[in-house]
């Protein structure tokens, strides 16, 4: 266990951290652009209101200015794409290359989640029958193999800022990390019929040693 923790700690992909890396740039840019355009429009409206019609300008273009502006927009797009591609590479590719500390097979069904730990034979169910948290270690890559038995569902653990669809006929693989201990809510995020609002889940993150203790004491058991 120690070797895996050391190795993964170097490259631990944290989806929440990747989300905020982008969020903290995208949102200020958006707010700035919005404020600029509102100010320009309001200024123009107030400045050029109540003028005689003969004063209205005849000019109606400036291709050089517009061309320069289009170039600025293109550079902005290039910048946003660089940020987007590098974050997406981390979350979708690098994360799955990490050596997982624990793997959980998740099965979605109407209207319940089943979390199965193949290494320990533990099964936990959560959903319309009630919420039973599944346990994960902090600070280490947790691999999820997500399947569905009936319709499309989506696993969303709110704290991680990540969700993924569970589509029947496939196994969707992704890797999440839980840097801090705690109880993290989640729910199904793809409309799946009548009791979609009740398909709740929760992840309980504990230290790796506490996780190991839990796994050994619960080996072969089923709950929820």
């Amino acid at each position, binding site marked *: 266990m120690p070797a895996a923790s050391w190795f993964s700690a170097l490259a631990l992909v944290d*989806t929440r951290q*990747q*989300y905020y890396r*982008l*969020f903290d740039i*995208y949102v200020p840019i*958006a707010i700035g*652009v*919005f404020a600029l*355009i509102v100010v*320009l*429009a309001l200024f*123009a*409206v107030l400045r*050029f*209101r109540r*003028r005689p*019609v*003969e004063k*209205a*300008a*005849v*000019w*109606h*273009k*400036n*291709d050089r200015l*517009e*061309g320069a*502006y*289009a170039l600025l*927009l293109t550079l*902005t*797009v290039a910048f*946003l*794409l660089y940020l*987007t591609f590098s974050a*997406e590479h981390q979350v979708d590719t690098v994360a799955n290359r990490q050596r997982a500390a624990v793997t959980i097979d998740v099965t979605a069904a109407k209207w319940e989640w089943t979390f199965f730990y193949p290494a320990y034979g533990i099964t936990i169910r959560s959903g319309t029958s009630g919420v039973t948290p599944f346990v994960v270690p902090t600070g280490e890559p947790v691999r999820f193999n997500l399947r569905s038995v*009936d*319709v*499309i569902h*989506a696993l*969303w653990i*709110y704290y991680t*800022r*990540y*969700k*993924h*669809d569970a*589509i029947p*006929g*496939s196994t*969707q693989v992704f890797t999440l990390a839980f840097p801090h201990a705690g109880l993290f*809510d989640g729910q199904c*995020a*793809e*409309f799946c*019929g*009548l009791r979609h*609002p009740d398909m709740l889940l929760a992840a309980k993150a504990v230290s790796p040693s506490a996780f190991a203790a839990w796994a050994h004491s619960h080996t072969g058991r089923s709950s929820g």
Partner: protein
Amino acid sequence: MTAVATPVERARLGGWIGGAISTDHKRIGLNLGLCALGFFLAGGVMALWMRVQLAQPNMHWVSDQGYSELFTMHGSTMIYLFVTPMAMAMAVYLVPLQIGAPGLAGPRLALGGFWTWLSGGLIMQTGWFTSGGAGRDGWFAYTPLSDGRNTPGIGMDLWVIGVILAATGLILVAASVLATIARKRAPGMSMLRVPVFTWTELVSVLMVVGAFPVLVLAMVLLLIDRHTAGIFTGYSGAIDYQDLFWFFGHPVVYVMFFPFLGASAESIATNSHKKWFGYVPFVGSIMLFAALSMAVWSHHMFTTGGVTNQYFAFTSTALVIPAGIEYFDMIGTLIGGAIVLRTSMLFGLGFFLQFLVGGLSGIFIASPVLDYHAEDTYMIVAHFHYTLFAGSVFGFFAGAYHWFPKVTGALLREWLGKFHFVLLVIGTNMTFAPMFFLGNYGMPRRISRYPDHPGWGTLNLVESIGAGIIALAVLTFLINIVVSLRRRELAGDDPWVGQTLEWATTSPPPPQNFIGPLPPIESYAPLLDLLHKEQGRADEPEEAPVP
């Protein structure tokens, strides 16, 4: 323009039947627009029902199944039966007038298209009266949930058939409009002298012709799948369905955007007494915008793992470029103008500024890592209501106040219009702004009820009150129409100092649109050119002086 022939000399049918089978584009446009408005009101009632259910946590005003029917039919009605057909209605009525034509090319296509669409809309709504209930798997009807095993019943079948007919009808109407722009322009009106609104309708009908047939295909396959099984099977089947659906599902939102952008642009230009700024870059940018919009569809599928997220993140983020050009042109039109803040102008400005919130949030979710959190939450609901409602519907009202005098011969009351605007701004932002925050706090979409998390109840209550204020605003609009038609203030041919050819004829226009010769057409604003000549300003520079 040219002589006009009728095939058979017979007495014209008047009354309801005459109006129903008329091939006059003004009659067809009006019929299509009025029916779309009726569906808007129906869809609005469904929204109010949903907002009552969601006003507080854990309410049981509506059953879980009832709620799924409501959100499905609200979305379907608004998209298939209000905003898209209204965009086409405005094209059918206004495009021939703006291009100086006596009528549509292929008017029977438009007439047949209207009736096909209307039949589809009504058939879709009959689902409400079936024992199993109306369509209830969202306006997108993902498989396998929408198949015969998971959602049996004729209500869902009626929904599918309704969509097939509605989409087919809209394709026929669009084909007629496209042929009209291609073939019926008045002498002197080259493509680069076509008005801004008509250009926005041109790119819209191109998208309808290119993308809507794929929806018809997807729905036919879904209908077969529901009754035989074996079409959308397994993982690849589910992804294929989404690929087919969203190939239509993304362009349609641009069909629901461009004409209202065009209406707002015409209103802003007219009420600034200036030509729309940057016409050629604008035309180029909307052509690029529309083409790109055909290439972004799988950004709706980022969380499926079944598509190459990078390609679609690339095309989706690239939309910043044409969108930015449009905002540059709006500012360029306002500056140096002689601005009159009529109701139509207020709605036009409202369109641009509020749509921007939707557009910027769209760039946010164009980034997969940001979308992995935002997808299927109220952040998405906020995004598309800002583009479609705070955007397009405001653009619709800009067009309505701008062109109502042309269509009816009467002016809409300005003070009622301004009251309508203020109520709608308040109601819209109260309803949809909190949704960004609710989504960020973890509220997923398409849930009939939610638990008592801190803040959720309060924000939802604010939204529900906002929805009520929207209803009052729409009611104000309807009252304005009734009052303005009852005690008419005559508009005359050109109440606004209009720039385009529809203002060079009577209000309403005669059957063949124009009597006598048209004014000379030397740009996309022929009447404004004429005014500048009269003012002796025709030789002033076209280029804006840059400080």
